[in-house]
């Protein structure tokens, strides 16, 4: 594709290579460590599920036991495998026995390593097979009943009650939505476990549980068939349980996951070591499951100014891209995020937004870019808000965005009501259809406001990335040089869940999922 913005390809290459070096540097660290969340994920993927009598999830029970027994650096897979060989039970039964105190998992005799491997791999392969089948099932749906045109219409449901969410989701699908995101309840990202079962009580969102995933996926399959259009399901693969949620999503055929390499560090004050290790495994799973990840660059602009800080969004996209590649996520699954958050009162703000959206499109040509709506400058004036959303939709169709998170006129007031979603879908459908081919029809004046804006942002992002490359990402964040947020290497939540790996640590899923088993 020829650049309509006259972007300097050498600058793009330079930025990308800086990001690659940044990610590479961190990868060395990642490869040496594991976390409780990663190990719980291994347990889940080996079949451990359910809760104990005080509602503590068995993956937590099991991994805590291993940790207390001092065995975490060898990995949960090893101990589960060892127990399987020792007891002849399956992982779920083992977890139950650990829970009831019948087994002390790190105290069992150590069996033959080959037998352990065999036991673990046999079970793991079945899970991987199941995930592969989910992926095939999705492809089959896409090939038979089809899907909506891009940009996909993405809306959220957030009632707190999974059954009420189902009603809202099905209504949205009938109105034309292509992706339904079930927003998580406030603060779930800071829980160091994943709640269990169907839930009906949440604030500003609904708990992410495997059962809730299942309920919603089933409801969406129903409506997909009715509408003759595959409706994607999205959830949040962030926070202290990043890889666990990925596993649950892979098992229940979610299609899209919010999943960012740095979000937890910057915006949830989760320890940086923890997040970076967790994100790697979560992304391996997402990648293998054919899930489109959505990165969280919009978050930079909820606190910082969208005009001043546009280059941080681009820099973060480059970094997310490189971390995703490392975890085996193809470009086609990289829903890199950005947002329409400029002050609506800015003269020519539309031109700047257009420049930035077009720039993202050209720099990441294959990515199904996830475009986030105006939120910060939305007010109680629902009428003007509806217009801001229209301008946002207009830029999206113009610049061929991939996934359009629809803005709601009531953004400043409440989580979306049934009719708010309808109005927003109608908004997007009108604009998309009415200006369908505008992107192919229009050229930008050479060295005009639009071209120069894009060139500027790219230049600044490249500079920032070169800076970070020199400094290293850990130190950059420690100094508050990225996203304006300062986080220390050993601060934040969840550091105690990070453990250095033993030489013999193993995780069958990294191997099976990255190893070309697709």
């Amino acid at each position, binding site marked *: 594709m020829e650049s309509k913005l006259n972007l300097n390809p050498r600058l793009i290459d330079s930025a990308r290579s800086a990001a690659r070096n940044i990610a590479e540097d961190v990868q060395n660290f990642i490869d040496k460590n594991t976390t409780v969340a990663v190990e719980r994920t291994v347990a889940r993927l080996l079949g451990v599920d359910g809760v104990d009598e005080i509602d503590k999830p068995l993956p937590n029970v099991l991994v805590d036991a291993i940790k207390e027994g001092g065995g975490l650096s060898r990995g949960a897979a090893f101990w589960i495998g060892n127990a399987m060989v020792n007891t002849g039970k399956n992982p779920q039964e083992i977890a139950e026995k650990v829970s009831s105190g019948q087994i002390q998992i790190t105290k069992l005799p150590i069996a033959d390593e080959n037998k352990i491997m065999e036991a673990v791999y046999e079970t793991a392969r079945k899970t991987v097979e199941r995930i592969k089948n989910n992926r095939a099932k999705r492809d089959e749906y896409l090939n038979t009943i089809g899907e909506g045109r891009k940009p996909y219409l993405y809306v959220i449901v*957030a*009632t707190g*009650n*999974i*059954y*009420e969410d*189902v*009603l*809202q989701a099905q209504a949205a699908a009938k109105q034309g939505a292509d992706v339904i995101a079930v927003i998580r309840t406030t603060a779930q990202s800071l829980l160091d476990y994943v709640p269990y079962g*169907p839930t*009906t009580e949440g604030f500003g969102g609904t708990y992410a549980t495997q059962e809730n995933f299942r*309920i919603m996926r*089933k*409801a969406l399959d129903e409506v997909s068939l009715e509408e003759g259009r595959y409706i994607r399901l999205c959830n949040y693969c962030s926070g202290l349980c990043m890889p666990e949620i990925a596993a649950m999503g892979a098992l229940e055929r979610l299609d899209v996951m919010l999943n960012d390499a740095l979000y937890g560090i910057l915006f949830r004050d989760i320890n940086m070591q923890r997040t970076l290790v967790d994100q790697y495994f979560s992304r391996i799973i997402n990648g293998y499951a054919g899930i489109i990840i959505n990165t969280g660059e919009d978050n930079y602009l909820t606190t910082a100014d969208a005009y001043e800080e546009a280059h941080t969004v681009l820099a973060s996209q480059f970094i997310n891209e490189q971390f995703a590649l490392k975890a085996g996520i193809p470009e086609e699954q990289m829903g890199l995020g950005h947002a329409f958050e400029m002050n609506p009162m800015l003269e020519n703000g539309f031109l700047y937004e257009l420049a930035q959206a077009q720039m993202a499109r050209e720099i990441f040509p294959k990515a199904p870019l996830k475009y986030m709506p105006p939120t910060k400058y939305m*007010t*109680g*004036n*629902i*009428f003007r808000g509806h217009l801001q959303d229209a301008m946002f939709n207009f830029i999206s169709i113009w610049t061929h965005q991939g996934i359009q998170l629809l803005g709601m006129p009531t953004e*400043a*007031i*409440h*989580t*979306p*009501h*049934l009719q708010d979603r309808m109005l927003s879908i109608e908004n997007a459908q009108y604009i998309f259809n009415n200006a369908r081919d505008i992107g192919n029809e229009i050229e930008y004046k050479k060295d005009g406001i639009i071209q120069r804006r894009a060139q500027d942002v790219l230049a600044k992002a490249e500079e920032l990335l070169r800076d970070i490359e020199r400094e290293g990402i850990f130190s950059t964040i420690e100094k508050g040089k990225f996203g304006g947020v300062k986080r220390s290497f050993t601060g934040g939540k969840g550091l105690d869940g990070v453990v250095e790996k033993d030489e013999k640590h193993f995780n069958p899923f990294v191997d099976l999922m990255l190893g070309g088993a697709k």
Partner: protein
Amino acid sequence: MMENIQKVDLTRIKPYGDTLNDGMVQMSFTLPVPYGDEANEAAKQLVEKMGFDDPAVVFSKDLGVGYTYFVIYGKCTHTVDYTSIEVPKVDMEFMDREEVEEYIKKYIKRDVVIVGACTGTDAHTVGIDAIMNMKGFDGNYGLERYKGINAINMGSQVPNEELIAKAVEVKADAILVSQVVTQKDVHIANLTQLVEMMEAEGLRDKMILVCGGPRLDHELAQELGYDAGFGRGSYANHVATFVVKQIVERNLI
């Protein structure tokens, strides 16, 4: 799966935002008082009088002449019994054009004469044209195209006297009146006058009298003394079905 959420009680329905019976309603209006906290409070009090809980002024704006505009959300406390609702409507299976033509041939056996107009000071002909002209509307042909119907469209701003005179002249079976402008209820006055004139001249029972327009419905039409009223989304075959069936029913053959 839906057994897990509360069921709608159709005898007591309430507005729905995101939870059954939350009563959520959006409102906007202007009050003739200056912008400020007192204005917001006045708006809230008004909305409370309407029977809302938790009114929230989510936006207000100075309109520049000592008046203030509000956007408000509130929770409606009233309910309606949906099960007891009956809407007067032209309740019949509408025939399509061919069926109407067939029906005329079979039961009326002569040409049906229909006169139509947009009356009074109203110049909005698009609606009556949509019903009467060849071309019709939205892919539905108009009455002129119907075999067995002689449709005479008098156009716009036709005084009621002229309309009646024409109907008498051509021995119309039905009169169709369109009214689009409703400001200050000008349509009510005008529609009422027509009925009164027809009654005075002893014509009312001899002709089928139908009105239509975007702000009209069957209920209002009947109140005003018309046989039927057609609102938005009406097509020629609807009114044609009604007219030919009435001719037979009322034995105006």
